[in-house]
C-alpha cells in the first residue's frame, strides 16, 4: 500500500501600510490600510476568500462526503484565522465544518507565522502555545504534528519537536540535502528517538502548485488521470503533497481548471487499490522510519535556494530582523497587550520576504508576492513602524 498525504498551508499576514516618517509618534495603527491598494488587508482577505478559501473548502467538504476514504491536513497561521474571524466569518465556519468531519488533521505552527525559532526560542514557544490554544478554541483539536514557517527546518527543530511530544515535523524534501534518500519514506530527525520527519515531494507538489497552468510546460494540460498515474508509479511508502491552499483559485485561477482537477483526483485515485489517503499522523503511525536525516543547516521550501536567504539575504532584511527581536525584553516588560500584539505582528515572515532583493533585478516570483512597489519601500514602511513602536515602548517604560 502507498499513501497520498495532502497538506495545505493557509496564511495571510498583516501587511504594514505605507507608514511614513511623519506618522511616527502620531499613528499607532500599522496595519489598517483602507486604500484600494494591495496593502489593504481586509480587501486582500475578502478577495482571496471569494476566489479560493470559500469555493475550495466547499468543494473539499463535498469531496469528503463523496469519498469516505479521503483525508487531508491543514496548517493555519493564527494571523490568518484572526483576519477571517473579523473580515470573512464564513471562511471560519466552513473550516469548522470541514474539520468536524474528523478526517482533516490540523498541524501546529507559530501563531504569527514568524521566524522566531531562529531568533528567540522562548518567544517561539509562546507563539506555538498561542496557536495551539486558538486551534483548540476554534476547531476543538490539538495539533500533534508540527510545521515551522515556510517549512523551515534544521536538526534542532527536530529535537524540539521530539522533546515537546509531537509525533513529527514536516519539511522540504530537497535532494541536494537528501542525497540518495527518497522523500517518499518516513525518516527520523537526527538525534531523536520518537519524532518523525515527513518530506515534501517537491516535484509532484509543484506540478500542481506552480506548473499546473503553465503552457510552456511539456505536460500541460495536467489531468487528474495523468497525475494519478504519476502518483501510482512513484516508488516508496508515501507521496507528500505539500502546498499553499491558495493554489486553488488564487495562484491557479478557476479558469485554469484547478477545481475540476481537485474534484476529479480522489475519484481517479479510488480506481487504484494500491493507493490510499493518509494524514501526517496516520502516515507516521503506519510506516516505519527508514533512516535518520541530518540537516544541520536551515532548509525551507522557498525558491531554488531552499534556504532562509529569501528572508535574511540582504543587510536591510537582517537589520530589520535584528531590530524587531532586540525589543523582546522591553516589550514583555511593558505589560501592554496592544504593544505586544503589534510587536508580534511585525514578526510575520512576509515582512522580510517583501524586502528580498535576491532576484529583484530580474523580476520574478518575489515581485508577484509583494504588495509594495519595491523591496526598499517595504523596508522603509517597516522600519518607520518599528520606530513608532520603540517610541511607545520608551513612553511605557517612563511611566511607572
Amino acid at each position, binding site marked *: 500500500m502507498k499513501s497520498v498525504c495532502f497538506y495545505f498551508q493557509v496564511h495571510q499576514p498583516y501587511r504594514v501600510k505605507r507608514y511614513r516618517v511623519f506618522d511616527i509618534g502620531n499613528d499607532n495603527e500599522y496595519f489598517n490600510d483602507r486604500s484600494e491598494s494591495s496593502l489593504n488587508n481586509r480587501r486582500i482577505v475578502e478577495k482571496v476568500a471569494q476566489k479560493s478559501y470559500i469555493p475550495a473548502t466547499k468543494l473539499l467538504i463535498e469531496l469528503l462526503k463523496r469519498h469516505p476514504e479521503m483525508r487531508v491536513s491543514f496548517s493555519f497561521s493564527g494571523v490568518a484565522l484572526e483576519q477571517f474571524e473579523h473580515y470573512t466569518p464564513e471562511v471560519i465556519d466552513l473550516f469548522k465544518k470541514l474539520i468536524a468531519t474528523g478526517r482533516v488533521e490540523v498541524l501546529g505552527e507559530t501563531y504569527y507565522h514568524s521566524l522566531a525559532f531562529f531568533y528567540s526560542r522562548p518567544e517561539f514557544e509562546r507563539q506555538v502555545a498561542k496557536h495551539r490554544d486558538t486551534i483548540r478554541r476554534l476547531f476543538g483539536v490539538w495539533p500533534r504534528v508540527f510545521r515551522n514557517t515556510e517549512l523551515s527546518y534544521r536538526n534542532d527543530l527536530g529535537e524540539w519537536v521530539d522533546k515537546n511530544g509531537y509525533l513529527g515535523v514536516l519539511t522540504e524534501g530537497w535532494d541536494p540535502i537528501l542525497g540518495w534518500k527518497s522523500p517518499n519514506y518516513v525518516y527520523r530527525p537526527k538525534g531523536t528517538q520518537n519524532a518523525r520527519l515527513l518530506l515534501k515531494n517537491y516535484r509532484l507538489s509543484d506540478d500542481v502548485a506552480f506548473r499546473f497552468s503553465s503552457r510552456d510546460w511539456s505536460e500541460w494540460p495536467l489531468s487528474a488521470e495523468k497525475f494519478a498515474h504519476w502518483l501510482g508509479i512513484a516508488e516508496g511508502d508515501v507521496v507528500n503533497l505539500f502546498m499553499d491552499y491558495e493554489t486553488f483559485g488564487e495562484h491557479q485561477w478557476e479558469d485554469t481548471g484547478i477545481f475540476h482537477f481537485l474534484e476529479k483526483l480522489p475519484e481517479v485515485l479510488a480506481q487504484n487499490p494500491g493507493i490510499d489517503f493518509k494524514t501526517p499522523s496516520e502516515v507516521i503511525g503506519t510506516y516505519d522510519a527508514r533512516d535518520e536525516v541530518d540537516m544541520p543547516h536551515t532548509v525551507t521550501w522557498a525558491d531554488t535556494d531552499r534556504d532562509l536567504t529569501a528572508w535574511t539575504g540582504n543587510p536591510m532584511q537582517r537589520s530589520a530582523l535584528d531590530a524587531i527581536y532586540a525589543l523582546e525584553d522591553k516589550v514583555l516588560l511593558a505589560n501592554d497587550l496592544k504593544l505586544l500584539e503589534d510587536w508580534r505582528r511585525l514578526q510575520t515572515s512576509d515582512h522580510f520576504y517583501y524586502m528580498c532583493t535576491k532576484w*529583484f*533585478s530580474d523580476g520574478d516570483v518575489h515581485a508577484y508576492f509583494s504588495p509594495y512597489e*519595491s523591496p526598499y519601500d517595504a*523596508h*522603509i514602511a517597516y*522600519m518607520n513602524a518599528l520606530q513608532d513602536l520603540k517610541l511607545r515602548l520608551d513612553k511605557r517604560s517612563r511611566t511607572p
Partner: protein
Amino acid sequence: MLKFLWGCALLYTSVMKLKILMFGWEFPPHNSGGLGVACQGLTRAMAARGLEIVFVMPKKLDVGAPWARFVFADQGNVSVRAVNSPLKPYITGFSYTNALTRVGIYGRDLFAEVMRYAQLGGSIAEEESFDIIYAHDWLSFGAGMEAKKATGKPLIVHVHATEFDRCGGPMGVNPDVYAVERAGMEAADRVIAVSQFTKDVIVKYYGIPASKIYVVHNGVDDTTLPRGGAAGRLRLASLKASGYSVVLFLGRITLQKGPDYFLKTARAVLARNPKVIFLLSGSGDMERQMMDMAASFGISDRVLFTGFLTGQDRNEVYSAADLFIMPSVSEPFGITALEAMKFGTPTLVSKQSGAAEAVKNALKTDFWDVDEMTNQILSVIAHKGLRDTLSENGKHEAARFTWDDAAQKVENVLQGIV
C-alpha cells in the same frame, strides 16, 4: 578561381564595417553635461566595435578657419573634425547672443548660427565618404538633414533630450526649437531614444510613429567616469566625521533638474534631522535663485553650492554622499544616477526619468512629492541596512550598463537600414 574571388567578395561585404558621419558634441572634460559624456561613451564603444566614424563637432577655433581636423591618439577609428562654431549643448537664444564676441564669422543669433552650422555640415558631407549620417540632439539635426540632402545617405537622429524636457513640460516650449526637432525626427530614417520615457514623449508630442523609434539606454563605465580618485578638496570627510550625513544634487541648476524640489525637501528633512548637509553641485540659470531660496528657508548653513565640478572633485562628492538625488522634472535618462550607483552611493531618482525605468535598485518618487522624498531621505539616513543594500545592489546593477551594450544596440539599428 572565379568562384574563389566571388567568395572573397562575399566575405568582404559581410565583414565590411559601416562608416558613419556623426554630428556630436565635445567630450569631457570640455563638456557641460551628460550629452558630452554620452557622445564620448558611445563613439568610443562604436569605434571599438570596428565602426569607422568621422566625428564632427562645433568648436570655437582661435583661427578664422571654418573648420579644423583633429587627431586624437586614443580614438582609433575616429577622426574628428571641428567646425568653427560657438554652439554648445544646452545653449539658449539668450545665452548665445550674450556670449557672442566675434560677429562676422558666426550667425547673429542662435538660429542663424544653427542654420550656418547646418550648411557647413552639408559641405563636410560632400567631402567625406560614409554610409550613414548620425546626429545627436536638435542643435545638430539641421546639419544631419543638410548632409542627407547633399548625399542621399540615411539619417539617424539620437534624442538625448527634447524641448519638453528642457522646459519641464509642454508649457513654454520654444516653437522654433520644436520645429527643428520635429523636422529632424521626421527626416530621420530611424530615431534612437535614450529611454522608453523619451520614446513616449516623441510619439506623443512629435507625432513620430513608434515603429521607427528604438530605445537604447545609456551606459556608464570607467571610460566615461571621472578619473583620478577623490581629491578631498571639498573637505567633506571632516563634515562626515562630525556626524553629518551628506545628500547630493549633481546636475545643471535649471528648471528641468528640479533643484527647487531638492531645496524644499531639504527644508523638510532638516526640520526633523538637522545633522544633514545638502550639496548642490553644478551651475545653471537658477543658481542665484536657489541661493536666495535656501536663505529664505533659513537653511543656508546646511546647503553648500559647489559650482560645476569635474574630475576628482566630482568623485569626491559622489563617494562622500550618503544619498544621491536626481529630482528631475523631466529627465530623458540621467547618467548621473548610474554614475552615483557605480560609486556605491545610494540613489533616489524621480519617476519622471529614464533612469527610473532602467534601474531597480534605486529609490523612486515623483519629483513633486516632497513628503515622500523626505520620508525616503530620512529613512536612508537612519537605517544602515537600507543604505548598505542600496549600495551593494546599486553598484552591481550599474555595472551592467555598458557603452558597449549601447553601441551594439545602435549598430543593430544601423545594420537594419543599409
